[in-house]
């Protein structure tokens, strides 16, 4: 047995020990979905622990309410052990695996990925400068952008698909219905798992005091990201409908993209600040730098996109275009291996939870 699988076994054993103590206590049932999910079981297989780990959103309410945290001999720290199981599961599911190890744990690796993206775009700007074109297309043609970004979008999707399939097999997932998806989407869209059960929020940046700051910052980031994604998609559709960029402020790409970019930047900066205030030992300390790097990358993607729009018509466009597209490229390519993977696996866990709940209702 290799050293790393020993470590995985050790982590699973500790996770099981902690969850069994929780199952004998049950005081935390009202905080989130994890504890009711625990009470439905008496024995916990590895896949059950993976499911619980991805269901946990690290709100930390259970840690501060726990009678059995250190220095108590039970030494419970459920948010941490579930965070570590989660990270470990994403590394195990990722394809190819070693990339996840690199980008999850190492913020500077994400920085290097961005620099490489930046360099590639710069090279494209230099070597493949179009004869003509409007707006940023004057610097990089639509064809070259598609040639770079289509594979950069599709390859990670394939990789994520493989990871999700591995996860789904491990947690015993079944055929997904619209109702499961609707439940999961409603939960994720409101970040219910960060509500503390009664809307008081998490115990994140203020220790045992509750606060909604993290929930709000994450909402801004999530919805900002989705708006930006929608803006890009709408631009693509418009392009093929015969209406290429540049777009004015009152076009769909800008109406979605500008507020989206603002939300993304505000949310990501908020998350960065909150993360520096929170206790690192209640998450997975090994991935702290990778998580910080990822949120920084998100913030930079949003900010450079806004700057690019603001700089329309100026000589700054080529440089900002390189920064923005470089960030976007790095973001997409590392998606299956960075903290970004959490969105997919958590959503899968919420879908699985909806399935289990539906089944237990009969």
């Amino acid at each position: 047995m290799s050293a790393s699988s020993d470590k995985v076994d050790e982590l699973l054993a500790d996770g099981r020990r902690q969850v069994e103590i929780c199952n004998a206590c049950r005081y935390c049932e009202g905080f989130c979905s994890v504890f009711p999910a625990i009470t439905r079981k008496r024995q916990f297989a590895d896949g059950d622990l993976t499911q619980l780990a991805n269901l946990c959103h690290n709100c930390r309410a259970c840690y501060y309410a726990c009678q059995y945290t250190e220095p108590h001999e039970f030494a419970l720290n459920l948010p941490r052990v579930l965070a570590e199981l989660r990270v470990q599961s994403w590394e195990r599911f990722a394809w190819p695996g070693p990339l996840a190890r690199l980008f999850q744990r190492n913020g500077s690796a994400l920085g290097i990925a961005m620099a490489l993206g930046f360099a590639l775009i710069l090279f494209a700007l230099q070597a493949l400068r179009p004869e003509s074109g409007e707006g940023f297309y004057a610097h990089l043609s639509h064809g070259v952008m598609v040639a770079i970004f289509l594979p950069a979008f599709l390859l990670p999707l394939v990789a994520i698909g493989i990871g999700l399939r591995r996860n789904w097999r491990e947690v015993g997932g079944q055929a997904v219905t619209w109702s499961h998806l609707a439940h999961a989407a409603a939960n994720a869209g409101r970040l219910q798992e960060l509500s503390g059960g009664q809307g008081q929020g998490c115990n994140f940046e203020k220790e045992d005091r509750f606060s909604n700051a993290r929930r709000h910052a994450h909402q801004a980031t999530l919805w900002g990201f989705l708006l930006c994604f929608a803006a890009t998609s709408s631009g693509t559709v418009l392009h093929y409908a015969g209406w290429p960029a540049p777009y004015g402020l009152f076009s769909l790409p800008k109406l979605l993209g500008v507020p989206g970019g603002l939300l993304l930047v505000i949310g990501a900066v908020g998350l960065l600040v909150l993360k520096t205030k929170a206790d690192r030992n209640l998450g997975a300390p090994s991935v702290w730098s990778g998580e910080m790097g990822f949120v920084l990358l998100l913030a930079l993607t949003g900010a450079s996109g806004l700057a690019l729009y603001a700089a329309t018509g100026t000589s700054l466009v080529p440089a900002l275009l390189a920064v923005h597209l470089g960030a976007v490229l790095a973001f997409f390519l590392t998606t299956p291996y960075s903290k970004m993977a959490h969105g997919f696996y958590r959503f899968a866990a919420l879908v699985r939870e909806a399935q289990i709940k539906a089944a237990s209702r009969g």
Partner: protein
Amino acid sequence: MTDLSEIAGKTWDVIVVGGGNAALCAAIEAAEAGTSVLLLESAPKPYRGGNSRHTRNFRCMHEGPLSVLTGSYGEDEYFDDLIKVTGGETDETLARMTIRESERCLPWMEAHGVRFQPSLSGTLSLGRTNAFFLGGGKALVNAYYNTAEDLGVTVAYEAEVTHISITDDHFESADVRSGNEQVNARGRTLVMASGGFQADLDWLAEAWGPAARNFLIRGTPYNRGVVLKDMLGQGAVSVGDPTQCHAVAIDGRGPRYDGGIVTRLDCVPFSIVVNRNGERFYDEGEDVWPKRYAIWGRLVAAEPDQVAYSIIDAKSIDAFMPSVYPPEQADTIEGLAQRLGLPGAKVKETVETFNAACRPGDFAPTELDGLATEGITPAKTNWARPITEPPFYGYPLRPGVTFTYLGLKVDERARVSGGYGPFQNIWAAGEVMAGSILGKGYLAGFGMTIGTVFGRLAGREAAAHVR
């Protein structure tokens, strides 16, 4: 650790001894009345809150639906429940006052940061009478410390009060020890909310006998009764049986202190319970929770080495709440006995005798099903199913002490009684005076009710005295 010079630097309006629910309620009320409050908690910060950190609910009277509570739970029904468990060992005036006041406490608790939730899984029987704390007692304790801090209460951790200085019937100051340092804290009033003495094993052994040294203490190791003893030595009037403690049968593998809720075992009614010699000694099917819960600690305490073993078979393993440690397990009774360190042949004989005495009938785990043995002593009068289906499981049981009954006598204004009437400026709240109301037995969530009602009362009275 706290800066002791701050403690000694002034005369406090109100000094609260203790750091659990009752102490916090008193501190909050006194601070809201505008007084300067010093709260002295003997435990370090991670263990603050005394036994309150292990609690989970609040028994509350209510005339109609209130917060998470359904239906109604009137004063008389509540009082009847108290009479049932105490056998009348209560002060009716104080008890009825506590019960009536509980209804006004719940909204106050919510306004001071406590969150409630509907009753937990496995506790549906308490859904009408008891409001559960979201996250349990430690979450309540955290909320109150935050509220107290916001109100300007000075909290000192690892600050153990060793002696109360009283002149005639008037409190003057408290000696406080923190680590190797000792200071004197002067105050205009004193609220005693320092809990019972169950963590002092020497004292327990003195009261109960040497068997007490084999007991596990379910709550905080910091309830050593130091101030209680000091006050009793200075003429405070006691209530409650000094030799008695409330003990339940818990998982014998649990920690010596602070095992809290998780070490409880609900397997007894589905099992046979044998002692170290492999013999049964009491009717395991006598009654349902909470009566069963209340007597088995005492029963196990009376057996050799204060230990017993609950044995079930595969039919019953899923019939009760999961245990914190997995059970011992084997495919034969002798094998199980060996794992538990019991005489195999004797246990086998006990099981076979029991099995032969079981009769056909319908098993109903949630009610007294009358499925009883015939022709053995002791009988098992309910849920008696033969233990035949491997694998067989066993859990060691030991007495787990929850609280002691000995305490300070108080009047209706929570003032502590001295030999010739109440002390002028000393009040008491919580476990340290609960023996006045709960003289015997146990009623789920009632300790928190006594602590909240008397904590608030003591805080208000002390503040009014200063003003």
